[in-house]
């Protein structure tokens, strides 16, 4: 056993104290018919061999590609100080801070995280974390139903499809109805939420809506008129959930400024590695009015008996261990270490740095747009975007595959991301961030030009 602590005669001494001959006696109460035989697993692997195996597995992934893939997870530069702090055992091997006297580090860091995200989102109450953007969005939708006592949720098709699928799973379990708001198909607002359709969906007096969910930027990278969506939602007595991307909040109007009641989103861009999807950081924030509905832990500032400032988990009676079947959510273990990572990232980057990350991404994306348009793949949409965009590419899946062979991860075909949107049949969703280089953009454009040039000319319009 690689981490066993026992010296040669320790076990014997313990057995003697207990008064038994063998540890097997302590398992006698397992009915014989139900006792397991030896587990059919590979032999134990000592650390050296194990490290070779793990290196080999990691080596089978290709991370040498020039990547332009976003779609809900983003490449960013994380200052080195972040991981150096996360490697401290006092952070990552600590338990949930139920005993506040010996957990002031974790508790204060969560309070600071809540404060940082409140500043970014413009909303007052931020939970200590949720699992990821999809689960956070699902639980935000459930919040709207609890708060309004209605059971119908409207979700824009421009919210990430994985988030919508997660929301549907949660809604189905809770007996709630989640319906989709279509996208504008043509014209300057193509690819954004269809507000006329939204108004129509909100107008049914027999089926009042609990919450309207829309993303900013949306999954196609486009900027929506969030203020108008909020006005429509509130006009019908519904709450407004905004799905956010935290780096963009350095430059875009935050949910608190345009009337969102709840914000949900993915904190991965704040110093958290791509890691094939997790562990990530679910962000949930809400207005003060909804404080008793928010799922997850909350840390508050208080004093100790000598008047020292101190931090403690508070409003605990909302949570599952106390409210049990009446709890708003069953969440217990959350993503505390990732909230810490985000806090350290924001502390290290600072407000000007975060703005620069967002603005540099926007600048590189504009360069990318120009380069790809020059290569024969113009933007598909006209609405403004920040750093993610769809370009028109005929036979996009095949082009994407061939670019991959050339070492370029050309985003994702929109036909794969949103197969039910005919207008997106021939597109690639690509993004740029502060780590995207001019050389990579040039390489992408050159390869794309070559691919498009080598393709047979289509008989009609693309």
């Amino acid at each position, binding site marked *: *056993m690689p981490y066993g602590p026992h010296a040669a005669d320790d076990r014997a*001494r*313990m057995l003697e104290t*207990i008064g038994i001959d063998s540890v097997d006696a302590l398992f006698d109460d397992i009915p014989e018919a*139900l006792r*397991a035989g030896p587990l059919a697993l590979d*032999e*134990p*692997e000592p650390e050296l061999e194990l490290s070779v195996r*793990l290196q080999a*597995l990691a080596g089978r992934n*290709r991370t040498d590609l020039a990547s332009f893939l976003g779609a809900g997870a983003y490449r960013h530069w994380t*200052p080195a100080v972040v991981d150096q702090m996360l490697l*401290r*055992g006092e952070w*990552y*091997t*600590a338990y949930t*801070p139920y*005993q506040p006297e*010996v*957990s002031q*580090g974790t508790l204060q860091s969560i*309070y*600071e995280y809540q*404060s940082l995200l409140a500043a970014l989102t413009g909303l007052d109450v931020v939970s200590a974390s949720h699992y*990821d953007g*999809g689960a956070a969005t699902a639980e935000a939708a459930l919040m709207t139903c609890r708060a309004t006592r209605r059971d119908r949720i409207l979700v824009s098709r421009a919210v*990430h499809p994985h*988030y919508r*699928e*997660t929301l549907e799973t949660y809604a189905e*379990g809770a007996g709630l109805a989640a319906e989709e708001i279509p996208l504008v198909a043509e014209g300057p607002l193509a690819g954004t939420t269809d507000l006329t359709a939204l108004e129509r969906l909100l107008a049914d007096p027999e089926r009042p809506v609990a919450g309207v969910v829309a993303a900013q930027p949306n999954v196609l990278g486009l900027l929506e008129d969030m203020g108008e969506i909020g006005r429509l939602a509130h006009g019908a007595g519904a709450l407004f959930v905004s799905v956010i991307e935290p780096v963009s909040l*350095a430059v875009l*109007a935050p949910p608190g400024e345009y009337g969102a009641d709840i914000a949900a989103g*993915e904190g991965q861009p704040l110093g958290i590695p*791509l890691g*094939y*999807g997790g562990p990530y950081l679910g962000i949930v924030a809400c207005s003060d009015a909804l404080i008793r509905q928010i799922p997850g832990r909350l840390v508050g*500032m208080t004093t100790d008996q000598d008047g020292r400032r*101190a931090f403690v988990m*508070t409003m605990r009676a909302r949570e599952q261990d106390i409210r049990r*079947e009446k*709890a708003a959510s*069953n*969440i217990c*273990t959350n993503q*505390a*270490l990732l909230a810490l990572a985000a806090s*350290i990232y924001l*502390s290290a980057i*600072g407000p000007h740095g975060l703005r*620069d990350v967002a603005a*540099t991404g*926007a600048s590189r994306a*504009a360069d990318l747009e120009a380069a790809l348009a020059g290569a024969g793949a113009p933007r598909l949409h006209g609405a403004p975007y*920040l750093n993610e965009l769809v370009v028109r590419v005929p036979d996009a899946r095949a082009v994407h595959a061939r670019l*991959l062979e050339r070492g370029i*991860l050309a985003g994702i075909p929109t036909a794969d991301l949103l197969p039910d949107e005919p207008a997106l049949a021939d597109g690639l969703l690509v993004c740029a961030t*502060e780590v995207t280089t001019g050389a990579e953009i040039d390489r992408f454009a050159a390869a794309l030009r070559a691919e498009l040039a080598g393709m047979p000319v289509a008989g009609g319009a693309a």
Partner: protein
Amino acid sequence: MSVVGERLQPTIFELSRPGRGGGKIPHPPKDALDRIPASARRATPAALPELSEPEVTRHYVNLSQLNYSVDTGFYPLGSCTMKYNPKINEWAARLPGFAGLHPMAPDAVAQGTLQLLHELEGMLAEISGMDAVTLQPAAGAHGELTGILMIRAYHRSRGDVDRDEVLVPDSSHGTNPATATMAGFRTITIPSASDGGVDIDAFKAALGPRTAAIMITNPSTLGLFERRIGELLEATHAAGALAYMDGANLNAILGHFRPGAAGFDVMHFNVHKTFSTPHGGGGPGAGPVGVRAHLVPFLPAPRVIREDDGSYRLERPGERPASIGRMRSFFGSTGVLVRAYAYIRAHGGSGLREVSDDAVLAANYLKVRLRDTYQVPFDRPCKHEFVASAADIKHRTGVRTLDIAKRLIDKGYHPPTIYFPLTVEEGMLIEPTETESLETLDAFADALIEIAHEADADPDLVKSAPHLAPVKRLDEATAARQPNLRWRGMTGAQMPCPD
């Protein structure tokens, strides 16, 4: 308390000064945002603090030193399994090949991770006697919701739409009934039997055509193996219901009991308990779910498939229509799962069985050492944890379990789990795990015994503990009545800065 630093720290907002820090990211061109309409732009910059890197470092190092942690000392927290977190796991998760992989990357570039995940599913299935595993859930509670939603889908697929009840023992973790509610079920709580186990006969009486599932923790949350589990599982299936096992206590039975083989239909694992992934101050964990064959169609999508040529791919949308769908954004908390994979490979089957052997041995040793000073209500061997009660001490001296817990902090230990499960008066749930030395176990027992004597000799000393922690007992009532959940204003402070 052997905390290296006892200095409370100002918040990052109080350390902020205009002009500090920055310089990590090149400046963009001045016109970078001109094409963004003003109506979509922030009116005022976000009020984030400005700190230099040295200040950031000192802040987070000093804060960390206010924490107790497994790397610092012993954490006998029942039901949490605070075992050692191996460092090779940290190294593995950070390998650039794993850490740099995008979750929507094409399968062809993700073969290493897909292989690891596929192998991990197989290992967990073998450990649990289940037929298939999903790695999607981000935590145990998330796994519970996944499992209960699959049970719901299973019954509906058979036209069995009237099953709206879930049976749960009163000793269960709060997540169980909360999960049932999230999945649209009513919870029926069954009181425990006097021997600490579930009341099988009460369960049988409650089972019926409205029962969708029972949720059982085995060993129970009191650390006792359910001897009549076979009978309970038979009765459950005879009533047409399914049996869910909360796998929080799996550390007690690795290599000894395989829930799927024994008759459970579905269970979750807490990899941050049994499989050593670190607790992180409240996560991340992961809660994979194992199922028997009849539930495989309903597993969350996408699953990872191994092709005949040895390559791996994700299921395509629509490939398995009965799936309950997605439980989260992407495939799973892969970084956490890499750690669990490394742990299981390091141990193998024989090593995992030794883990349970040593965990159970350590718990029984501590139980014997403490049983003359504290009451241990159940007179049979425990598994990996046991409950000790301070009810006698309370009646005699007025000192409560809460006070004993706070006094343990002065002795240099994190307290055990207290007041859970609620079925034992003034209870402490103690779980040493298998990675603690005999010296540590003995020193801990000595400390608890010493506190019991202090309770008799000087009860106020115990009732006013902790004395040696960075902060003393907190005003939790005001914190809840007048919540202060975020820093307001970047200048000045609501309360005096400790410095």
